[in-house]
């Protein structure tokens, strides 16, 4: 019987950078335990010598000519400035201003 403890839930949430409430941690511990108990059924399958599938149509190393192509949207070229408008954060000199990533020592 697989059991995903609250501590494990918290650890995984940290890896996923997912802020969870205590209530969510408790609920996910119960629910994930039952999901992983179900997934255990896969252990019945003999996969000795079987290759993993990550792509189903057999394509391999798809290549394209290395060239810059214009990206037109409804007839107008899509610019970097336009893409920056999607950010909810302040933009300065074509860069998005985020919180400090490195703490001052």
């Amino acid at each position: 019987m697989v059991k995903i403890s609250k501590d494990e839930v918290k650890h995984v949430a940290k890896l996923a950078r997912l802020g969870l409430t205590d209530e969510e941690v408790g609920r996910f511990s119960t629910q994930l335990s039952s999901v992983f108990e179900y997934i255990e059924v896969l252990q019945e399958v003999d996969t000795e010598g079987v290759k993993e599938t990550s792509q189903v149509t057999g394509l391999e190393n798809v290549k394209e000519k290395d060239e810059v192509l214009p990206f037109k949207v409804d007839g107008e070229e899509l610019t970097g400035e336009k893409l920056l408008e999607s950010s909810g954060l302040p933009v300065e000199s074509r860069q998005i201003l985020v919180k400090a990533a490195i703490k001052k020592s």
Partner: protein
Amino acid sequence: MANLNELSIKEIALGLRAHDFTSREVTEACLGRVGERNKDLNAFVTVCEDESLVAADKADKALAEGKDDGVLMGVPCGVKDIINTNGVRTTCCSPGLKEFVPPYDATVIERLKACGMVMVGKTNCDEFACGGSTEYSVFGATKNPYDLTKVSGGSSGGSAAAVADNMCPYALGTDTGGSIRQPASFCGVYGMKVTYGRVSRSGVTAFASSWDTVGSFARNVEDLSYVLQGIAGRDRRDMTTPDIEVPDYTEFLGKGVKGVKIGLPKEYFGEGVEKETVDVVMEAVGRLEKAGAQIVKVSLPMTKYAVAAYYVCAPAELSANMERYDGVRFGSVPSEKSADLVDSYFKQRGEGFGEEVKRRIMIGTYVLSAGYMDAYYKHAMKVRTRIIEDFNKAFEKVDVLIAPVSPFPAFGIGEKCDDPLAMYTADSLTIPVNCAGVPSLACPAGVSAGGLPVGLQVIAPQFSEGLCLQVGEMV
């Protein structure tokens, strides 16, 4: 004549060219139906009243000037809200993207615009296409047009309900584990899940990249063939679209099923599948046999492992795809002040994702974490290979497979919401098809005693969408 919003794509196309009505009139009829019914069904999350009428007028003007872009020109449609539409809010039905307006169109939208599309609006779905009932949407559930206390199915429930309720003749959806076929089956319409790679996913929000497909809903097979013609084929912006010729899908219509070998996989008619559903599907199979098809019993023994393999692989891919939602380049920003950048990620992702998406990110992150990757993820990818081998063997013996889409008709709203495992296993008959990446067409087969639609699926080898349409037309 029927009301304009009830016409098929073909009837609209003919009527426009015979000057019986204009695209504006058809579009107004569809918008009118949306206005009348959407408060009950919640199929559309954004209605494009002005934009659709502008597009309709443009189509009318072009047709009057003798410029014809084909059968889809001036025909209204709905688009699942995970497909990017330039200048029109695309929310993925997620709290974190409620105000997101994409600056470009998905390739499928670009292609349909070139065909003269008229988009009446964006349709409801489970957040990021994660769900099987359209209840996990920040906008609330889409109701089933046949019974407002039942779910529409999911994740593309809004598109299915909109087409079933005559709000538009066709709508786009996506199918990763059954998200087109199951709602099509619950709402009594046709839904085409294409071969993996047949239709470009550029500009369509990624859920599980080795499974995601884009397809459509319509009220008849012929209409589906027109939409598929418009969207299928190689796209430089999606490297998983192979350079395989797109056939003329209408050529498969009217051919009948004489001599077609249809396999019935016994696992899809067994344990867990309601008897009534089996009976309705078998009645339809009987009709196909009368029309000349040869019915063969087959077995796909790995079927029972598909849901488990899927719920390892798909959440793993989802958790990786969801990494981009950090509140920096797009989406909402945290409501509270953050101490630093990492803290802002925790806050944004905690607020910006709904419950089911969080649950799946957790599953995916767990199976990819140190120490578990081989036991879960790699093993599941090997099980997937064995499921594919099942299909390959079956298609050596038969041309197509026919099976129920769902083990039961539409379930009640709220019935499975608090039991994720019950929601997951409800997709037990659609997920194996996604494992193999083969096409499958959901067709209405009949109704249950309770008056709810029951659907069957026609499953064919990769890139044989035409064969699905040929057999589906005769169901």
